[in-house]
C-alpha cells in the first residue's frame, strides 16, 4: 500500500462512509437509496450521517422492495442521476435480480450507447458474522456471468475508500461487493492514491504458490501466507479486487513464476469464480503449470447454520491443506 493519505487510520465501514461522502460532494447527481439508509445509517451504519448532511432527497429511505430499488435507479439514471443502491444483505438482492440482469446490465447496450447506467449496487456480502439464513451469501458469480455488469470487491479500508468512489464515478453499472465481516475489523491507513479500479494487486510476494482471493478471503490468505512462511513456503497473495473484468496480466505474471495457483472464495465451489480463473490460467499458461489450479471455496450446499460457518468457510487450515496438496504435484 502506498503512503498514507494523511487521514487517520479507519475501519472499512468508516472508509466506505467517507468514500460515499466524497462521491456525493464531487457530484450532486449522486443519490443513495435503500432500506434504512437514512436516519439509521443502514444496518451496518455505512451511510451514517449522510442523510443529515445531504438531505432526504439525496439519501433516500426507500419502501421495502428490492426490484423497485433497482428499477427506480434505472429511471433515475435515465433522468441523469448517478444512483448508489444499498442492498441490505447479499441474500436480498434476488428480488431485484431481474432489474439488474435484464435492465441495468442491458440498457446501455439496448440503446446503442445513447443511455448510460452509472449505477452502483452495494452488497454487504459473505459470512462469518453468526447471522441467520440469507445474511451470509456470496452472490458475485451471478453478476460476473452477466454481460454488461462489472463486479468488484474491496478487502481493506484503503481500497474501500477509493474503490467506492471509482465505482460511483464509472459510467458503467458496478456491483460493489463489501465483505461485511471486515466492516468493523482493524483500522488501517488510507493510501494517498487509488490503485485503478479494475486492476488486481500482489499484496504479498512469494515464489512457491500463488494464492488468489478477493473481498473477505484476502485476509485469510495473508494469514495463511504468514503461517506457511514459518515452514519456508512462500505464498504470493493476490487480491483480485475486480472479479469482472478479470485482470489476467497480474495472475499470469505470477503463475508463470510459481507454476502453482490456488483460488479462494466463499461462494459455492461449482460454477464459481475459481472455475473461470482455473480455466483461463490453464488456457493461457498451460505449459507453465506444475499442477492444476486448485480451489478452496464454500461447499455446494446452502450456507450452513452459523455454528458451522467457520469450518465451512475457506480458512487457514483449508488453505494450507490445499498448499500441501498443490506442492505434491
Amino acid at each position, binding site marked *: 500500500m502506498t503512503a498514507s493519505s494523511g487521514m487517520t487510520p479507519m475501519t472499512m465501514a468508516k472508509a466506505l462512509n467517507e468514500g460515499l461522502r466524497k462521491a456525493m460532494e464531487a457530484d450532486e447527481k449522486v*443519490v443513495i437509496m435503500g432500506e434504512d439508509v437514512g436516519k439509521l445509517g443502514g444496518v451496518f451504519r455505512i451511510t451514517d450521517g449522510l442523510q443529515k448532511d445531504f438531505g432526504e*432527497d*439525496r439519501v*433516500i429511505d*426507500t*419502501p421495502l*422492495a428490492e*426490484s*423497485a430499488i*433497482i*428499477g*427506480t*435507479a*434505472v*429511471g*433515475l*439514471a*435515465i*433522468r*441523469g*442521476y448517478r*444512483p448508489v443502491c444499498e442492498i441490505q444483505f447479499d441474500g436480498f438482492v434476488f*428480488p431485484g435480480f*431481474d*432489474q439488474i440482469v*435484464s*435492465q441495468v446490465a442491458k*440498457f*446501455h*447496450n*439496448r*440503446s*446503442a*450507447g*445513447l*443511455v*448510460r447506467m452509472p449505477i452502483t449496487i452495494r452488497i454487504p456480502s459473505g459470512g462469518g458474522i453468526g447471522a441467520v439464513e440469507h445474511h451470509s451469501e456470496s452472490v458475485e458469480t451471478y453478476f460476473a456471468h452477466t*454481460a*454488461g455488469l*462489472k463486479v468488484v470487491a474491496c478487502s481493506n479500508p484503503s481500497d474501500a475508500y477509493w474503490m467506492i468512489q471509482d465505482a460511483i464515478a*464509472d*459510467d*458503467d453499472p458496478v456491483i460493489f461487493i463489501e465483505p461485511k465481516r471486515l466492516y468493523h475489523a482493524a483500522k488501517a491507513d488510507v493510501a494517498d492514491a487509488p490503485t485503478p479500479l*479494475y486492476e488486481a494487486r500482489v499484496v504479498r510476494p512469494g515464489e512457491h504458490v500463488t494464492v488468489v482471493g478477493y473481498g473477505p478471503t484476502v485476509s485469510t490468505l495473508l494469514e495463511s501466507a504468514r503461517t506457511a512462511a514459518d515452514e519456508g513456503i512462500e505464498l504470493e497473495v493476490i487480491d483480485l479486487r475486480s472479479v469482472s*473484468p*478479470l485482470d*489476467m496480466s497480474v495472475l499470469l505474471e505470477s503463475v508463470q513464476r510459481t507454476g502453482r495457483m490456488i483460488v479462494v472464495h466463499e461462494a459455492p465451489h461449482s460454477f464459481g469464480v475459481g472455475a473461470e480463473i482455473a480455466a483461463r490460467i490453464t488456457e493461457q499458461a498451460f505449459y507453465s503449470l506444475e499442477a492444476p489450479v486448485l480451489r478452496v471455496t464454500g461447499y455446494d450446499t446452502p450456507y450452513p447454520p452459523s455454528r458451522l460457518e467457520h469450518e465451512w468457510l475457506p480458512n487457514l487450515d483449508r488453505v494450507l491443506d490445499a498448499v500441501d496438496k498443490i506442492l505434491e504435484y
Partner: protein
Amino acid sequence: MSEHVHAVHPEPDMVQLLTPEGQRVEHPDYSLEISDAEISDLYRDLVLVRRIDTEAIALQRQGELGLWASLLGQEAAQIGAGRALRPHDMAFPTYREHGVAWCRGVDPLALLGLFRGTNLGGFDPLEHNFSMYTIVIGAQTLHATGYAMGVVRDGAVGTGDPARDTAVLAFFGDGASSQGDVNEAFVWAAAGNLPVVFFCQNNQWAISEPVERQSRVPLYQRANGFGFPGVRVDGNDVLACLAVTRKALDDARGAQGPTLIEAFTYRMNPHTTNDDPRRYQLGSERETWKLKDPLERVRAYLAREAGMDADFFDGIEQEARTLAEHVRAGCRALPDPTPESVFEHVHVTMPDDLVAQRADFVEFVSAVSS
C-alpha cells in the same frame, strides 16, 4: 371450461366523449375544449399509425420482420395519451406503443430494427423523451417511477411554470397489472406522491388469457388500494383518452401525485404475428368490438358534424400511402448490424478481454462472409 365470456363490461362510469356512432357527449368531470381542426389532426394520427401497423404486418409476412406486435384497435388510446404529453414530459412504453412513438416524433422506421433483428432499439430515448421499448412485462413502470423521482429532485413539479413542470407517463397492459414490479411502482408513486401517470391499455387479453385471470374487479380500481385515483376511459375514444390523460398529467405536473388510467379497449389482431387467437378467442367478441372502431367514430363525426369533405379524407389517404412507401422501402434498406456493434456498447469503457473477443468475432465474421 365453457367458452369464455367477459364478465367485465364497460362501466357506466367509463369516461366517453365521442360515441361509437360519432356523437360528441359531455362528461361532468372531463370537458374538452377542442376545435374540429384539432380533431382532424387526431384523425390523421389515427389513420397514419394504423397504416404503419398494417405495413409492418405485411413486412412480417414477407419475411422482412421477424415479428410484429400490432396496435390494431388501440390507436385511440395511444394517440389520445400520446397527444396529451408535452415535449418535455417523458413516456415509458411497452413493445406495442407505436402510436405513442408516432406522437413523440419517432420515425416508424426506427421501431422496425428491433423486430427485424438489426438492432435492439433504433432511436434516441433522450432526444424524443420516449424510453426504449421494454419487453420484460412491467419493468418500465419502475423506470418511469424512478424518472419521476428525478423530476421531483430537479424541482420540476408544482412550480406552475408550464415550461418547467414535467410529468411521466408509463404504459402497460392488463396482464402486466399482475406483475410485482407494476404494483411496487404503485407503492412508490403513492408513497412519494410522484408525478407519474400509469396508463393501462386493457385490451382484454394477455396473449391467450382474458383479463379475468388477472383481476376480478375493473383494473382502474387497483389504484384505490394504494391511495391514488383511478379512472376508466373508453380506450377507443381518442377524445376521452386525450382529456383524461391531459387531466392526469396536469395533476402530476401540479404535484397532485399519480393517477391510474385504464383505457378500456380491445386487441383486434393476434397478440403478435406469431399468435393464433383462434385457439382461445371467440370471433363474435371481435365482431362486437369492430362496431366500436376508434377511427370510424372520428371519421363519422368529422364527416357529419364537422362537414369535412372527400378532399380532406383523400388527402390523408394520400399521406398514408406515402408513409407506407417510406416504411416499406425504408425497412428493406435498414442496415444490418456490424459485428463490432455487438461489443461496442456492452460497456462505456470496453474491458480488455472483450476487446480480444471482439477481434475474434470480427475476424470470424469476415472470414465466413468472404
